[in-house]
């Protein structure tokens, strides 16, 4: 799979290039700012773009804005945004433009190589990957509501669904049986009054919409 990296720190750019190369991705371009990123995406038509949020010239939210442009202009290019901080507000912006083939993760996550590569593949394949931290931020805004009816375990499963994990992913993360996960998921959908669906992607959407993203 072909990747374009946008990261203004030379150190991290080199590290990411190696990590993705070792992970079986082909890094076709590594750039240092949003403008160069948009040019590289137009030129190389990669499968996925990995984008840092704070880049020159203003070091605020260039990466998010560039990701939104890519989402709009290149529907076939998946976008994974990386940042040293994740912000619920940026996630909402991203998801309002595109709800598939999009991801938003803390940079810390690259340290867990296998998980990170999984998330990147998921995004490249049209799925979503939201950082647990973003999901936690979305959850703090909920008032007393149906969420209170979930058991702690069900809440855990809901968070993993919101991160974009499939049933298999949840099974692995919680070390429980696939049938248990199915039961949790169906409980959650009943308690939150959501229309059940078997398709992973639709399920993520339903959960995120419920959380207000």
């Amino acid at each position: 799979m072909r990747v374009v990296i946008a990261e203004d720190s030379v150190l991290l750019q080199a590290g990411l290039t190696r990590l993705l190369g070792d992970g079986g991705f082909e890094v076709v371009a590594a750039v240092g700012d949003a403008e160069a990123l948009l040019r590289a995406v137009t030129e190389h038509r990669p499968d996925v773009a990995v984008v840092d949020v704070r880049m020159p010239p203003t070091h605020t939210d260039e990466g998010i804005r560039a990701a939104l442009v890519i989402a709009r202009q290149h529907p076939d290019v998946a976008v994974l945004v990386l940042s040293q901080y994740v912000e619920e507000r940026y996630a909402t912006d991203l998801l309002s433009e595109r709800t598939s083939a999009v991801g938003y993760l803390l940079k810390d996550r690259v340290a867990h190589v296998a998980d990170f590569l999984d998330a990147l593949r998921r995004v490249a394949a049209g799925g979503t990957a939201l950082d647990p931290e973003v999901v936690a931020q979305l959850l703090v805004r909920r008032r007393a509501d149906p969420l209170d009816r979930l058991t702690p375990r069900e809440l855990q499963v809901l968070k993993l669904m919101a991160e974009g994990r499939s049933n298999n992913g949840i099974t692995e993360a919680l070390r429980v049986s696939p049938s248990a996960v199915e039961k949790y998921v169906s409980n959650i959908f009943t308690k939150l009054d959501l229309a059940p669906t078997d398709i992973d992607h639709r399920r993520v959407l339903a959960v995120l919409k419920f959380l207000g993203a």
Partner: protein
Amino acid sequence: MAADPDAAYREAMSWTKTARDWRPTALALAGLAAGAVTGAVLGGLVLGWLAAIWSLIDGPTGAWELAWFYVVVVLAGPVLLLWATHGLGALQRERFRAVLGNEIAAPPRVAVGRGPLPRPVRAWRAPATWRQLGYHLLAMTGGVAGGLLVAACWAAPLLAVASLAGVWGDGPGVAVGLGLVALSAAVALVAPWVARAVARADEAAGRALLGPGRSEELALRVEALARSRAEVVAATDAERRRIERDLHDGAQRRLVSLAMQLGMARASLADAPEPVRQVIEQAHDEATEALAELRQLVRGLHPAVLDDRGLDAALSGIAANAPLPVRLRVDAPTRCSPAIEAVAYFVVSEALTNVAKHADAGRAEVTVERRDDRLRVVVADDGRGGATLDGGGTGLRGLAQRAAAVDGTLTVDSPPGGPTAITVELPCES
């Protein structure tokens, strides 16, 4: 503004002790001229104004346009008098500055568009206006008289000689003439002391009447203090921003890189001997933990999203990272000034840290509401209560100080056994 007004005054008055100083004389003579100008301007204005009033009362004669003219004069009179009063006040202060080098601060100006009354009315109600007018009355009378006296003293020998030379008809007899010369010489000798006395009185009156009064001086001082305090607050914010940026661009990046390398090593060394693998795994775990801790710490400083998207967007980050469940409700449709947002953010961040450390609470709730131009932040928890502002080590005192620095208040409601609510009220603009 000098730290000790008395010392400043003594310093300013030191010229009175120096002999053979021409400045008192210059001041008195300039005072004579200024008094004459003052008399002409104020006298002309007042006489013209009274004449116009009298003409209206008496019934205008002649063309009817004249009546309008009188009305205009009557209405414009007080405004012109006001200008003249302030203009002449500035002139007199300039006289002191030019001759003695003494700076008398101008009284505060009456601000435009503050208060219900028109500006001239408010200016006439200001004590400074009346004090200046009082000085002008003194300048017209005492100032002119003093100036004339000083001039006469210095001119006495000349006058005596002129008299002897018979400028004014037959000169006096020799005995009387000699007496006159001796007397005039004596008068000229005391002239410096006369000049100093006149100048001293003038200077004292000028300081008392031309400058800001005690309450106005205090008002100016309060303004200056408020300004410098705001600068300190802004500097603190800037410092926090800078530290956040430095860590983001420095230590955090290096740690991410380090954790990533260790992660790669961990993934590729699955077949390595057990001790090696253990060391790498431990190093990897430590690095990711350090990264998370540093992120948590920096998050409490001044996140970029606070400037970028405001308080509402920034708060969910700290609420989500607290080690206990936190509910967040923000109802502030319009943003407050950056300084206030920074204080509110800091308050929530510190208060939640406090709750986690001391309250023994199961959950916390953060509410932020904007009502008109007040921002109200409440951090409540269901912990054991008993928190006080003076309680050691809880950091509540620091929070109260931070709120007070922007004219905000902090109250603690924390009965023993809980629940606790910390309420901070901040003015939205600062």
